[in-house]
């Protein structure tokens, strides 16, 4: 791969370790990969979409991103980086389960989650603009995707397929 494997692994590991669930690693990955020109916003968007179409947790979009920037090795590194940080909860829970359910820990998790949510919202607008999706119908499509995903009644894969169909109809 063109990208330094150790550096790429550390970027994925950091994003996974400092996020709380699923897509919340996106702002960190965007800061470390797009600003440094290792990945493009187009690739981020593709990876998110593929992650939604594919099986498994949403957070596995980083496996798709790993493949896009580093081939099979990149995908393998991203998978390991996704697997390791969540497992630190196992030894921590063994040693001090009661400590985990105290107000300061609840506050820490809540504060990180709320900050991450704000950053994720900012990232979503930035990738929309950076991907050049600013035509009226694309903005309307994004708004529809927000509503459908927030309500959660339609499977994400169908929402992505609907977006692709709209692109084929309107995007040439």
């Amino acid at each position, binding site marked *: 791969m063109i990208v330094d494997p150790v550096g790429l692994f550390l970027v994925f590991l*950091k994003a*996974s370790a400092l*996020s*709380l*669930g699923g897509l*919340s690693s996106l702002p960190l990955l965007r800061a470390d990969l797009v600003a440094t020109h290792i990945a493009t916003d*187009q690739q981020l968007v*593709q990876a998110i979409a*593929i*992650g*939604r179409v594919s099986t498994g947790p*949403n*957070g*596995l979009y980083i496996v798709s991103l790993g*493949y896009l920037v580093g081939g099979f090795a990149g*995908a393998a590194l991203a998978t390991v980086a*996704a697997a390791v940080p*969540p*497992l630190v*909860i196992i030894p921590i829970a063994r040693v001090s389960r009661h400590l*985990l*359910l*105290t*107000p*300061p*820990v609840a506050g*820490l*998790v*809540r*504060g*990180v*989650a*709320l*900050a991450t*949510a704000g*950053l*994720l*919202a*900012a990232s979503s*607008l*930035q990738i*929309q603009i950076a991907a050049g999706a600013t035509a009226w119908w*694309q903005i309307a*499509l*994004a708004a529809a*995707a*927000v509503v*459908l*995903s*927030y309500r959660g009644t339609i499977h994400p894969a169908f*929402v*992505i397929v*609907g*977006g*692709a169909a*709209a*692109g*084929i109809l*309107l*995007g040439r």
Partner: protein
Amino acid sequence: MERERWLSPREFGELWALSQLSPGIHLVALAGLVGDRVAGWRGVAATVGGMLVPAAAITVAVTVAYGAIASSEIARAALSGVAPTAAGMTLATALLLIRSTARRARAQAALDLAVSAAAFAAGIAVAIPTVAAIAIGGLIGVVALGRERPTSRETPVG
């Protein structure tokens, strides 16, 4: 789980609550905690491997398949619709994360939303490093947001 009597519903609920505190993908943490409870480190390897390896392989396969057609005109047109859709879904994820995290009492909700709004502004302005914004959020959380246990996450975000 319950059918095989590996865990009682109460145990499962407790492990689920712990998994929500983990860094990274919460479903991976839940799989690991369940595996550990049932069969120690071998259980962890089985549950986490069983969850991630097939899912990662399928994700790579979909990415490879997409790459094979990515330069075609129809794929480019499709992407022009998929890009805003993925961006919108990401925004919805952020909103769902706020909904499941923010507390319900009015003063607390206002404080919680202010943290998200400040992080949003920091993210747009770019002047503040992402890691710093997350750290500040965590610090504010320890000091001021811990009065109430986290509300149960109705929406899976992992």
